[in-house]
């Protein structure tokens, strides 16, 4: 093995290793949530599913939908302020899949709020 080939391999290994480290560091933002959070997600999923038994969209004899009204003229777009407010930096963590799903995959549901 020549010295040049050895150098190339070393660069490749270091490069791949560096990429893996960078990826794992990104993953850690979500994986390293900390303990206790399964219960937090449980409350989220309970709220997600709690109105699953509401039956909607069963009125098969509903009247025809009225024509859509004509769209009014759009007002002039307001000028943006000099300094736009910054969006909040914090973003919610993704919720892990629920440990339980109601029978029937959620059934009929109405629109939430």
């Amino acid at each position, binding site marked *: 093995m020549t010295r040049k080939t050895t150098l190339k391999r070393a660069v490749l290994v270091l490069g791949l290793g560096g990429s893996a480290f960078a990826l794992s560091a990104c993953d850690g933002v979500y994986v390293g949530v900390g303990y*206790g959070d399964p219960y*937090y997600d449980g409350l*989220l999923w309970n*709220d997600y*599913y709690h109105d699953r038994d509401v039956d909607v969209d069963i009125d098969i004899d509903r009247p025809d939908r009225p024509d859509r009204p004509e769209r009014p003229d759009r007002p002039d777009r307001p000028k943006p302020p000099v300094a736009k407010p910054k969006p909040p930096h914090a973003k919610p963590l993704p919720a892990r899949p629920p440990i339980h*799903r109601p029978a029937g995959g*959620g059934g009929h549901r109405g629109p939430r*709020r």
Partner: protein
Amino acid sequence: MKLLQGAVLLAGLALSPVAGLAQTPTTYTENGRALFSFAVPDFWVLRNGGPREITDTELGDARAVSRVMGLRPEASDGVWMGFVSPAGVSSIEDGLDYLGDIDRFLVREPQVTDRSAARIGGRPAQVVRGTGTRDGRGINFTAAVIDLPGPRVAVAVTILAGDADPGFVADLNGVFASFRAAN
């Protein structure tokens, strides 16, 4: 060896929270309006959450969920407490119905051992206690539905794993004792 034991004991004392220290008042809000408040014990971590949408990837259905505030001690993974004021749940009876599934999402093989009426922060409440398992651990849970002024309730859930330090019960009760509905 004795020196090592002494060092460990000192380290433990240094890390132990002192009972009776001040707590941190926290307010649960919705659209900027305060619904209720409670105190976060010292050396506990608060996860604030907020209004958001989540999607069950198997259903592909994004839905809005209410703010969930979660608390846990810094030093234990066997204790947890959460608050939520679910939109559309307007009475204690509705709240108990809301709790009908909460055990399934929080614990496996739940067994309700007790239901009772109570007053929390001067407000009428219903408290449900039970046991179950989660991640291979036996746990005790307590869920409370607390009436709020107007057509709203607060739902509070506590989890105490069987192997958790029972001393945390005092902290959990302290949070309940600090609960106050906003006017």
